[in-house]
């Protein structure tokens, strides 16, 4: 019973983290058909800028509660401005290339960003643990959980709702969905696809960066942290169906729960859980759980 409860809570916390790190990735793929390898670098960028900002903020001795604002604002500013640089300065010259080529383009961006981050922040670990400890913990059933983790669940739900609202209830979102559905028709309808692409990339990069910032308080921000999350985010997105926000949510939940169960029941298989889930899903639904198969005209 205690174990089941632990699995549920751990699974939800991990799932919400997975959702935050993969939402931006799937959005960018859905609209732009770019599987963004540098997503992890935006994650690292957010973590570094957020942690650096929080460190500075506390050194000024201001009110601790506003550190959350500092954390998030720093990450969003950094993520969006670098995103703008990457999209306007590089990606827009590559649109229309093969999807696999785009993977390599973003892989190049990843390599550059990894070293650029190192040049800016060095290799010393950065800490932003104050927001993490500030919220305290909750004890129940002999277990104790960090409230920050519960907040993470809330934030991921907020991000999910915001994306859903943005895509389904706003004008721009509807335009976006037209682009997702059929790019050619979209431009034929006079939709400014280039602008949609820029906006999408900025949102995606911003969420990626935000994910890093939200993760930063729970760990030390070190070089290479971005590389580690890419494979995870890819797996989640592939399971859910590339380009589907709902898919990312469901994929994150499945992987999160499966991993938590493995840790508690069969720690030995923890490493394989994610691939096992991926294999199972793809064997029965090659397009992922929520992707729409695109028909071909003959």
């Amino acid at each position, binding site marked *: 019973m205690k174990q089941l409860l632990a699995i549920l809570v751990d699974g939800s916390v991990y799932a919400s983290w997975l959702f935050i790190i993969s939402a931006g990735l799937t959005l960018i793929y859905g609209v732009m058909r770019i599987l963004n390898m540098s997503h992890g670098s935006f994650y690292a960028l957010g973590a570094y800028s957020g942690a650096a900002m929080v460190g500075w903020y506390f050194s000024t001795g201001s009110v601790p509660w506003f550190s959350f604002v500092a954390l998030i604002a720093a990450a969003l500013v950094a993520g969006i401005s670098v995103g703008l640089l990457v999209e306007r300065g590089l990606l827009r010259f590559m649109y229309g290339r093969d999807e*696999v*080529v785009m993977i*390599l383009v973003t*892989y190049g*961006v990843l*390599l550059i960003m990894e070293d650029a981050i190192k*040049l800016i922040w060095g290799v010393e670990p950065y800490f932003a643990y104050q927001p993490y400890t500030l919220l305290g913990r909750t004890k129940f059933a002999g277990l104790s959980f960090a409230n920050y983790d519960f907040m993470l669940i809330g934030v991921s739900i907020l991000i999910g709702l915001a994306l859903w609202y943005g895509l389904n209830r706003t004008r721009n979102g509807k335009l976006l969905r037209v682009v997702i559905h059929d790019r050619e028709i979209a431009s034929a309808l006079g939709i400014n696809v280039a602008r949609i692409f820029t906006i999408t990339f900025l949102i995606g990069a911003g969420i990626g960066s935000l994910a890093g910032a939200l993760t930063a308080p729970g760990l030390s921000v070190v070089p290479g942290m971005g590389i580690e999350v890419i494979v995870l985010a890819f797996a989640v997105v592939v399971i859910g169906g590339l380009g589907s926000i709902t898919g990312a949510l469901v994929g994150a939940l499945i992987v999160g729960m499966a991993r938590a169960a493995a840790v508690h029941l069969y720690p030995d298989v923890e490493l394989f859980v994610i691939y096992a889930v*991926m294999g199972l899903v*793809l064997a029965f639904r090659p397009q992922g759980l929520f992707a729409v198969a695109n028909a071909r005209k003959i």
Partner: protein
Amino acid sequence: MKTRSLALLFVLGLVVIAGGLLLPQWMSYLFTIAMGKGLVVLGLVLLMRAGLVSFGQGLYYCVGAYVAGMLTQFVGVTDILVIMLASVAVSVAIAAIIGLLLCRYREIFFAMFSMAFSMILYGLLVRNQFLGSTDGFNVANPSLLGWTPGAEASSDLVLIVAVCLVIVLGAVAWRYLKSLSGYAGEAVRENEIRLEYLGGSVFRVVYVKYIIAAALAAIGGTITALVSGHVDPEMAYWTTSGEFVFIALMGGTAHVAAPIVAAVLFEALRTYAFAVSPYTWQMILGFALLAIILFMPSGLWSLVERFQNKKARKTS
């Protein structure tokens, strides 16, 4: 192939081997590694010509390397030819099974799914204490038909075998690409529906190519294992596979020699970047990658083709 071409190829092989042996050892080492990687990328190029990009060639690269390592270290088989055959046999067997599932997928799904399989191997190796987990284990020096060259000459032996393999397999691949089976790849890339309606089996075409690519990757892995004397699970990690795609893109898919040449250049570039700028070598590689994609979309081989076209125009 004409006798003249064969003779030229033979001479080229001798020149490369002689050159390789005369190089300072660190360069001939790099060159041998490049030959190994070149073969892996050659297999990848076969797949890419069929429109499939595998981000999981590291799987077979690693299998080949581990077979070589286990044979020399635990079984005591050191004959390089036996090792090659065993590596190829094992990886072909694995590819024949995985291929049944994988060859149904295309594009990004093929890429991601192939990556997942190689990551599974990585996970299995990491869990395996007997095979040294992440540390891997050392590979003993190879022999050839009863001749044991010893520690110093064994890297020369591997170099010679590697160059011979590259030339023979390259020539075979060249013939292959000109055959119906070779063109079948392009046919799959361009239009699967048409191919099916012509009565061709798209699955079979892809499946065969996948197995060939796996065999080539295993040979490349074996060469690497024998020359570096060590194997570890890193060979199956996705970044290794990514590197192969990098090299493939760098060379282009226009000619069988492109991946080999690209592998040599890549090793040179990487070791330069390492030496010139130990802190920011990744950045250098990143910029090189972007530059190639931006300015030479068909890879470095397009330079050779441009050069040839100019010459052809002049002489005509």
